[in-house]
């Protein structure tokens, strides 16, 4: 397929390799996703399936569009001025970019955890967990139970149960990140998107967050952007390798079960990347 990335250049989008081996039912699926910043096409023809209750890792060198892509999955991309996109994201069979879909509803079903822990500094730990309800004006009859449940799911309850009234700033970076996970879980999403959630954390906190991700995947779908090859292998059942070469838009080189992508990659560039030969 040939597309115009800008008026002057033409870019051939290669077909993603390895996708055939994913046969499970997908809860979410991106279909022919193209993304622009202003006139610049940064992602081309991304087709990925995210099976229910699984973890998918998005890997690739910096600037290949992983973070941009993950933001299209809950309609956060469109908030950037000059951002544009084409394609579909099917969530439970319906396009989240459909004309009647409210982006707020999408973001409530598909939560997001960011690179840098970003709890609300003026709020207490408890208020942070419940902040999603306040922000989206959702009523909850038993807030205390919800706080405990969300913090337990995020693996933070035991550490903070005696100081729920402290401000979020009193927590360590790793705890703050798990608080952000708890905050996302409190609005009960079906999918959790994580954009390099451990890149600002120390190794101990990283392992703790990974444990949380594995626990979450028992009942929800997780998509995680990571630069850490070991992390991808530790937490993800599926891996997609993104690449952007020679200033061309990024695309998915290879996608499949994590074991295959790492042990028997089809594409030599995948092999080079996962073995640390570039990127």
């Amino acid at each position, binding site marked *: 397929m040939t597309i115009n990335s800008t008026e002057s250049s033409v870019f051939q989008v290669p077909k993603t390799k390895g996708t055939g081996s994913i046969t499970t039912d997908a809860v979410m699926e991106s279909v022919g996703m193209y993304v622009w910043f202003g006139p610049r096409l940064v992602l081309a023809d991304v087709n990925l399936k995210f099976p229910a209750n699984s973890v998918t890792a998005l890997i690739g060198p910096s600037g290949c569009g992983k973070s941009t892509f993950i933001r299209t999955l809950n309609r956060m991309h469109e908030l950037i001025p000059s951002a544009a996109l084409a394609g579909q994201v099917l969530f439970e069979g319906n396009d989240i970019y459909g004309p009647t879909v409210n982006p707020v509803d999408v973001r409530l079903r598909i*939560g997001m955890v960011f690179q840098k822990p970003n709890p609300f*500094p003026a709020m207490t730990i408890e208020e942070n967990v419940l902040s*999603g309800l306040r922000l989206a004006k959702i009523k909850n009859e038993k807030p205390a139970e919800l706080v405990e449940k969300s913090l337990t799911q995020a693996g933070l309850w035991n550490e903070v149960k005696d100081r729920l009234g402290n401000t979020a700033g009193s927590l360590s970076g790793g705890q703050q990140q798990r608080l952000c996970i708890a905050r996302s879980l409190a609005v009960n999403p079906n999918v959790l998107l994580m954009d390099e959630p451990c890149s600002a954390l120390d190794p101990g906190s990283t392992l703790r967050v990974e444990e949380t991700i594995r626990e979450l995947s028992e009942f929800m779908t997780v998509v995680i952007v990571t630069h850490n090859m070991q992390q991808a292998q530790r937490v993800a059942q599926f891996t997609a390798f993104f690449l952007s070469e020679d200033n061309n838009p990024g695309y998915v080189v290879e996608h499949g079960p994590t074991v295959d992508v790492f042990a028997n990659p089809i594409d030599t560039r995948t092999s080079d990347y996962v073995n640390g030969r570039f990127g």
Partner: protein
Amino acid sequence: MTLQIPKPKTISRNAQLTKADRRFARVMTAAAFFSLVVLSLIAIFLVYQAVPAIRDQGLIQFLTDARWDSGSIGERDSDFVEPIFGIAAMLWGTILIGIIAIILALPISLGLATFIVFIASEKIAGVARAIVDFLAAIPSIVYALWAISALTLKGREWGEWLTTNLGFIPIFKNDIGIWVGTPLIAGIVLAAMITPIITSVTREVLSRTPAELVSASLALGGTLWPTLKYVAFPFAKSGIVAATMLGLGRALGETVAVFYVLNLTYGTINWVGIVSPQGGSIASLIVAKFSEAGALEISALLGGGMVLFVITLIVNAIATAISRLAITDK
């Protein structure tokens, strides 16, 4: 073997500076001192000049008496009137129009700043910013001219309407039947003058709301208003208070625009009647009386200046303290 612990050494900051650095530092220190010296000299001058009047009237009387009477020496002894100088009416009037100005200016400024930072497109925000900055630069006499020629007429209609329809509320009462020269009009002019200042500072603080907090709010299903209410405004709270104080400081000291639209009334304190033509303003008092004042009255007017100086100093100190609090908060 015992370990010899060396003596701690402090290295002076001066040692890190070159000769030119040191010279520059001295000039800067002198400049900083100069502003302090100027401030102290003004204060000393005001106190020194005000002493005769305050000694004559008594400090308590000067601050609490509403009467301001230059006195007179008639042909006969019975015509002699003792001068009385009290600034209570003017002092309260100054505060009243300041409060009116803040009540009117604050919501507009918050709305405008929010619009510029969070709602307007980049292009429109740029235009709005330029307009606000331009408004801040308009000389106050121009605001005064606008107030005299346009606002006074409108203000008379508004005042009459308020008294007719809401006159049962004390603040809208008017027993005099004239709606020109009211504190409301003066407050509106001041509001117009301080809105750009409050807007500029508020815009600056709001624009520093960390983008990751805004993203977090939106990703949690927050729309614009909840994001403002729970994220941006709490973040900017102390900055907004400081901005308001800055505006108030300006409003309290404003002279010419108030002088031309406010009717000064000596003798009674108009506590709340904002559409009644009985106003007070220390700055306007000074303009009104200075050219025809005798020695004692000039001293009293300078005493008024001293009081105004102290009030604005307090307001500015509060603003500084709050903004410093905001910095240590984060």
